[in-house]
């Protein structure tokens, strides 16, 4: 039995060494590869200048054609919309922009029904930040707030790569290792949607909450750090119920640019909350005209 226990202890020790080795290897590759995700792209812009930065949820990700902005204005733009982002996620990305010392002329932040959401975090942003969990105090603070199993993730080597295996497991590690490019960098963060297949059942909240602590945090953080933030609202389709919510939001945030009703053609929408590629092109042109060309 002693021999067996010794044998098992050796296997267990080997397991720990393998876990540490794999954790180190995966993290190193993610840190040093060409950007494949939006966060890696943001990280690669350390100490650089981007003229316009767009923050928000998938509604921004699918609506702002960054390359079109560059073509029309000659200025650089990056779309940092993350799927399922709330104000808290946007606040984190804003802090990361500051942390990485990325210079910019304008930071355009989407505010709409997400103003009403204070709980929860974008799982997409979580996946993308996961290999960089110890990167800086901003990412650490983000995971302190968002992760339920933070201790396991933080202190068990390789557990994060097992737990989020479909997104940051071996397949993604390998693609990072061989520097396989994604369209994220090519499109400067814009993710186009194709087609038009929506039902007319989209609804905005009927009530608006008195305040969102993360929105307030964004405003204060931007003021302190002299970051040029602008709040705007991406189009909804005309069938959206309770569109009055945006009017209420505008009363609360007078500086909000309300573009919720600027696209009327249903064919421009993938669904009631998301523009398709044609819609994104039209809206980006409109946005350039209204906000990005100095007249």
């Amino acid at each position, binding site marked *: 039995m002693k021999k067996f226990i010794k044998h098992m202890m050796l296997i267990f020790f080997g397991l720990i060494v*393998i876990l540490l080795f794999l954790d180190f290897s995966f993290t190193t590759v993610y840190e040093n590869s060409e950007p494949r995700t939006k966060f890696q792209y943001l990280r690669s812009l350390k100490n650089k200048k981007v003229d316009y930065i767009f923050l928000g949820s998938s509604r921004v990700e699918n609506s702002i054609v960054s390359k079109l902005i560059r073509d029309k204005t000659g200025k650089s733009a990056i779309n940092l919309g993350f799927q399922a982002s709330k104000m808290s996620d946007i606040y984190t990305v804003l802090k990361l922009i500051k942390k990485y010392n990325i210079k910019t002329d304008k930071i355009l932040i989407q505010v709409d029904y997400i103003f009403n959401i204070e709980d929860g975090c974008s799982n997409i942003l979580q996946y993308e930040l996961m290999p960089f969990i110890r990167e800086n105090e901003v990412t650490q603070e983000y995971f302190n707030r968002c992760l339920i199993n933070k201790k396991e993730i933080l202190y068990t080597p390789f557990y994060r790569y097992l737990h989020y295996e*479909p997104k940051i497991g071996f397949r993604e590690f390998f693609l990072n290792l061989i520097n396989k490019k994604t369209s994220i960098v090519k499109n400067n963060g814009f993710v186009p949607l194709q087609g038009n297949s929506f039902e007319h059942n989209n609804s905005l909240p009927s009530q608006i909450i008195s305040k969102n602590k993360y929105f307030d945090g964004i405003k204060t953080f931007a003021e302190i750090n002299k970051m040029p933030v602008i709040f705007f609202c991406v189009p909804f389709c005309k069938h959206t119920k309770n569109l009055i919510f945006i009017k209420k939001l505008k009363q609360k945030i007078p500086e909000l640019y309300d573009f919720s009703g600027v696209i009327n053609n249903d064919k421009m929408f993938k669904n009631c909350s998301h523009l398709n590629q044609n819609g994104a092109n039209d809206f980006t042109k409109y946005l350039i005209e209204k906000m990005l060309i100095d007249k």
Partner: protein
Amino acid sequence: MFFNSLSFALFLPAVFLLYWFVFNKTKSTQNLILILASYYFYSCWDWRFLFLLVFSTFLDYYTGIRIEKAKTETARKFWFWLSIAVNLGFLGIFKYYNFFAASFSELVNGFGLQTSPLLLNVILPVGISFYTFHGLSYVIDIYLKRIKAEYNFIDYSLFVSYFPLLVAGPIERATHLLPQVKVKRSFDFEKAKEGIYQIIWGLVKKVVIADTCATYANAIFDNYESMNSLSLLLGTVYFAFQIYGDFSGYSDMALGMSKLFGLDLLRNFNYPYFSRDIAEFWRRWHISLSTWFRDYLYIPLGGSSGGMAMKIRNTFVIFLVSGFWHGANWTFIAWGFINALYFLPLLLLKKNRSNMETVSLYWNWSSLKVILSMISTFALTCLAWIFFRAKSIGEAFDYIGRIFTNQSFLPQYLENERYSYEIILLIIAFILVEWNSRTQTEPISGRYSWVKVTLCIMAIIALGTYSDYKEFIYFQF
């Protein structure tokens, strides 16, 4: 509590330590701790079904004794048929009742009468097909006077409820397992080490091969209407390795952990995808079930002793029943029927026992023939697996039809954001490892075992599929 779960990773060492350090005084204490652990293990799924397991155990224990003690043939028959009827009755109610009710209703509706079946809202107790078959073999063996009845309830309970084999086999025989639980086990380092290696290899098969293949196979089968010929073909291959990795991986883990307790279980898989014909495949796939049907159905029906017509009838009976054992769906019956059709030419040509030895390859033409026969057997197996995996027979035919009519062999991007061809290299690597170890129970033992253990652990950690948690396929049977 699955073998590949964290809770089981805590449960197994705890039972191991209790077994060898606290309850190791006598055979009875060893059996007692294993029984308690087994009942706890089973109750982790649904404690209510524990009563069913205990009742089933008690029924066969009691009827076994009554059969042995019966003074008249009528009494023997009575207790025997009582056990058979109650065992099959439970299986019928929990597993097959809804199928028969729905099928009957469909048949009646086909004649223009409008009926709606009276369906039962019951959950299938996990492992019921396995422990029912344990009990049945025990009672049949006593009835046929092959074995003596077991009078020690704890020993008998352990034979039925032993947790490594409780929910997905292998289907043990009283003649094999009961004598082992009747004696005190002593710790054997080599056996335990072998067990650990077998558990590790089983985990590789489950989390690296089966679960990874499942990710791709599911994306293809669930969207087969939009898949091209290449993806559909790959889908069948992936499912073949999914089900093999899943079930044989489970069996390896069961056999391995049983060795930790000093008990040997029946081997359930013997590299079936290296079979040269379907008869050989069935000697190597789910061996404990195939031999169960051979001994308790095929031979009592007359086996091979009668004329050719009887042999054919018996062959079809065991394949159809074997298919139906897997689940209450026509797809499983079709799968059994197809395998019977595959078997038929071998039976007619009396070649069903022509490939008995382990396959070997040399640099000559006859080896090429062997390779072709292995590939064709695998292809036939894959074709049958389509029926096993499909939701209906119509869907299976549609799937097969699209393989031939689509005729596009370009790489296809799947719904799960992966290309259909991506894991071919992984499967080839797995085949090569299995080929090199086809004369052993697992590939880790032997020379350089430390290197092989390290590689396997690395594969389990780095290549395994974890987040999209998949239970073992055979648990549903």
